[in-house]
């Protein structure tokens, strides 16, 4: 197996709590994953699951939050944790690019979108001003902005939400990044526009050969796009697998619950939706053992010790359930939630 493009090992991220008595709060706890070149990795979780913090710390974007980041992040064989801000800046935007939920946070309102793409190109490449402009117009066309030469001079406020997100993606792609990190890229968009942006991200792989890390709470978005999926809960990866394995034979009770709580769009309508009882735990009140145990319909005494995610195997879950127990447990989880 060739060395993965991005290799994250035992990543732990802690923040100082609001109360001194809490000490450090661990937002990400022992996350490991690999990203191969040209692959789309989906990272799924609810709010507070640590999915965004994981990727922000990989990118060195936690800034002055006082976060303590431990573990190892190797990109193309080079350790990223501990690099100086200046060195990191060269990696970000060049080899690793980002797209966030709200395109307005990535665009400055006082310059035209063309100017902003040119700036990025000039910072990371040695293109001349004229060549950078030509490339920027090319990129705007590639992401499907109609009449790209005219769009070059437009300001962010003159574009719709979907068009802005396209402009941000054009900017992210400007330096042919090896990895594109997209954090909830379509959450703020309407469903018709979301479909267009997802199609665009799908096309990137063939057109630009970029690997994509897609962070989202929406399992539907992941199913259509990702090759592999990580499911995160309370700062830990609870299940890892190929998209097909995960959606067709999920192993973790939390994944069952998540999949069960999506109302179907076709076929029989359940009288009640299977749901997971309770709410995700707060970081300062994490249960000692399996973090999901308090909400799990099939938890037992074994769950008092934290289950580890097996390091080996394409499809694995951090759960004590033996493979032969899963079918019955799944049945109970999807019914148990109904009365909750």
């Amino acid at each position, binding site marked *: 197996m060739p060395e993965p493009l991005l290799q994250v090992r035992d990543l732990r991220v802690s923040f100082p709590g609001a109360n001194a008595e809490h000490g450090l709060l661990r937002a990400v706890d022992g996350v490991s994953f690999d990203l191969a070149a040209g692959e789309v990795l989906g990272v799924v979780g609810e709010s507070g699951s640590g999915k965004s913090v994981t990727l922000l710390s990989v990118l060195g974007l936690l800034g002055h939050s006082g976060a303590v980041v431990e573990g190892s992040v190797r990109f193309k064989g080079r350790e990223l944790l501990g690099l100086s801000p200046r060195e990191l800046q060269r990696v970000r935007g060049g080899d690793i690019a980002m797209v966030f939920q709200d395109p307005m946070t990535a665009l400055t309102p006082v310059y035209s979108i063309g100017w902003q793409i040119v700036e990025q190109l000039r910072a990371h490449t040695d293109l001349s001003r004229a060549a950078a402009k030509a490339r920027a117009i090319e990129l705007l066309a590639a992401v499907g902005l109609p009449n790209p030469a005219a769009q070059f001079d437009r300001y962010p406020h003159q574009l719709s939400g979907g068009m802005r997100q396209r402009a941000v993606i054009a900017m992210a792609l400007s330096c042919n990044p090896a990895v594109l990190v997209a954090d909830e890229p379509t959450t703020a968009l309407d469903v018709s526009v979301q479909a267009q942006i997802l199609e665009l991200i799908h096309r990137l792989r063939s057109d630009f050969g970029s690997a994509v890390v897609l962070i989202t709470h929406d399992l*539907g978005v992941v199913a259509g796009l990702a090759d592999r999926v990580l499911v995160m809960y309370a700062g830990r990866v609870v299940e890892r697998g190929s998209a097909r394995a995960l959606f067709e034979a999920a192993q973790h009770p939390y994944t069952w619950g998540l999949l069960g709580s999506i109302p179907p*769009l076709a076929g029989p309508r359940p009288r009640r939706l299977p749901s997971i009882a309770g709410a995700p735990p707060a970081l300062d009140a994490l249960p000692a053992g399996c973090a999901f145990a308090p909400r799990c319909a099939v938890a037992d005494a074994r769950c008092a010790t934290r289950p580890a995610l097996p390091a080996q195997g394409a499809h694995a879950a951090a759960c004590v359930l033996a493979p032969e127990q899963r079918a019955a447990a799944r049945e109970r989880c999807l019914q148990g939630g109904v009365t909750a």
Partner: protein
Amino acid sequence: MTQPPDPPIPSPVTLPTQPPLLAVKNLSKHYTVGSTFARGGRRSVQAVDGVSFDLWPGETLGLVGESGCGKSTLARCVVRLHEVSAGQLWFDGQDITHAGRAALRPLRPQLQMVFQDPYASLNPRRRVGELIAEPLRVHTRLNAVERQSRVTELAGLVGLRADQLQRFPHEFSGGQRQRIGIARALALNPKLIVADEPVSALDVSVQAQVINLLADLQERLGLTYLFIAHDLSVVRQVSTRTAVMYLGRIVEIGPTAAVYSQPAHPYTAALIAAVPRPVVPAAGAPRPAVALQGDPPSPLDPPPGCRFHPRCPAATALCRSVSPTLRDSGGGRKVACHHPWSAVG
């Protein structure tokens, strides 16, 4: 995987014998934007443009559409948070289109609203018990002891523990705050609840709990819901009938099962097709074409003719010039399209 047969969604109350609880007739809401001195001068936005529907007791009408289609404006007009520009609004047999504050006051308890962000509507300095009691203090003559027992009852109804009533809103998760918002809306035994995106701010696992709660409450208390959401699968789960809005108008309305399994308006079909499903496509299967290109047009400058024609794959010259009216197409369905997609019936 084999395709399951058509969804056995219970059909709505068949040909109602009772009068509608809410009748919306040709309702319009215009806003004026800009100023006399601005470039372009003062212009009028038709946020809601001639919308009509009836809401029968005990049913849930789901209202879907993309942002800017006027669904929230419509909701606010229905509960009279906004003044209506034109048309009529009948609630429980009374014309409330222009009813004043005093005339509305006895109706307010029966007509409640649940908002997307419950935190925004909960006073952070009040305990949850007091917040739930507030409508009782304003609208009823219950004494403190009676109020207390009603609050405990309401808390139980929405799944809050009695000991949680002493806490403050910030101590609750998003799902629990929405339960508090629902308890407040239920306090006065309303007939109609207008819920504007009540679950869209919640995490997936919590969203299902609140959807189930709303369904339980409807069954136990005989509530009628106008349920507004942008999430098509949520609307399918909760509604007996579904209305689809586009740029201020209803383009299709009908029994939920029929609208979802056989959409008649091209916009409805495209909207349903655009929802990402939690199913991995078969290996090597071609990716489905993106059904809707472009953005919804600005309501400031709606296209002539059918407002959907610039994005419609089936648009003809007729669509570009003549606006289709919402016509009865049988089976309790109405469609505003010159060329509806599937034969209904």
